[in-house]
């Protein structure tokens, strides 16, 4: 199962590592960390959103207990149900295209998240390749992500390669 967890960490060195350690210990596989220093709470804490894969509820419970015993403040826990996984490849002058915008924009689509991004740089003046793994909670959101992506690629003159037999 994929879990989304929001916690608030004190803004002192080592806090993030302290919070991540129990997840690794119970076999969790972290897929994204969003560290929002610019959105500090009134008490000066930094909100951190984690997405990680973990085997089952009992392991999640152990993770949460471990965080509690370390005085990590967890403000939100939720299981994310992503049923559609799509892999796409982008080809072109990708470094020039704003890859960060691309990921943020896909993540802003409801029920959709970029789980993995791999870049393979081409030689000088050669085109590069990027692979994105996109998770969605429904075919509709998966289609939305792909249709936004193909529009983006058209604008930036990137070649988008989708999977054969993608979402209907």
């Amino acid at each position: 199962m994929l879990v989304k967890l929001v916690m608030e960490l004190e803004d002192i060195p080592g806090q993030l590592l302290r919070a991540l350690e129990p997840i690794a210990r119970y076999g969790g596989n972290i897929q994204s960390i969003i560290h929002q220093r610019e959105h500090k709470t009134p008490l000066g804490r930094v909100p951190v959103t984690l997405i990680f894969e973990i085997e089952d509820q009992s392991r999640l419970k152990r993770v949460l207990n471990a965080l509690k015993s370390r005085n990590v403040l967890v403000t939100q826990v939720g299981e994310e149900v992503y049923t559609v996984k799509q892999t796409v490849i982008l080809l072109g002058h990708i470094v020039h295209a704003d890859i960060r915008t691309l990921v943020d924009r896909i993540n802003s689509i409801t029920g959709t998240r970029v789980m993995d991004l791999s870049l393979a740089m081409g030689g000088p003046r050669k085109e590069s390749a990027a692979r994105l793994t996109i998770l969605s909670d429904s075919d509709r959101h998966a289609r939305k992500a792909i249709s936004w992506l193909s529009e983006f690629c058209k604008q930036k003159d990137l070649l988008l390669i989708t999977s054969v037999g993608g979402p209907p």
Partner: protein
Amino acid sequence: MRLLIIGFGNLGRGLVESLAEKKSFLYRRFGLKPRVVGVVDDSGAATNNKGLDWRLLVKKAYQKAKVSAFPNYKRISAVEAIESVECEIVFELTPTNIQTGEPGLTHIKKAMKAGRHVITSNKGPLVVAFRELEHLAKKQGVEFRYSASVGGAIPVIELARKLLAGNEVLEIQGVLNGTTNYILSRMAEEGAPFDQVLREAQELGIAEKDPTLDIEGIDTAAKLVILSNAILGRDVKFKDVRRTGIARITPQAIKLAKETGNTIKLVGVATRQTVEVSPKLVPLGHPLAVGGTLNAVNFKLDLAREISITGFGAGPRETSSSLLGDLIDVCRTIA
């Protein structure tokens, strides 16, 4: 059964050789006695209303000779031959022109109007005037077959229209071009760049000197138009196909695909709404993940769910399998 063969290039010669080789088989199994009463190319026509001598035909085919090398050949055009030579079936095997469909389009129309059954491998007339030709055949009461136009030896159209007739075909996915499949397969195996593998394919005679039709997906698009019209019952034109070729594919892209258990293939996809040719990620182990110059087609169906078929998509001998299949089918239908 008297046959007139228009076009004496690779496919015409391949057909002649297979007919000669299978003469006794065709008689034993189907009671068929085909006679080639004429072969025609742009140099002229060799005709004999009793049937040209098989040994002569095979010899000329083997020598890759023009028709003008036949004794007693006449300097007449294909249209004149169609109008003057008595026969039951015309094989239209001239090269494809997907812009005009010519000269094949004129040949097929003339033959139908003369009351001949027509079997063709030529994509051009089918891409340009599919519905018109189907209507004309119906109106003239003649049979019209074109299995060899898509998938070479693979009975793609027959499989869908006959054996899967009880299904609604929801989607057709196909690797329909051997040249691009060879290039992408080699790039995946060797990690070599596109230009280098293309040159290798040209040296091996797998790719043309001008590879545009293949690598830009034009050939695949033409085949997809035919499949959409013949199987999905649509009236699709070439310009309706969204098309992207393979020239931009890099070894890095294929490597990224591989890391997630995929490969990249040039795939044609047709549904009731869309017709598209583009490079696609294909999971290794998927029916379309075929190597070398192989072709593959995967049908999505309402009852059978999925049916796939793989085989050789080109080559004179392989394609003659489809031409012979059509010949036998026409003979059974009119018997």
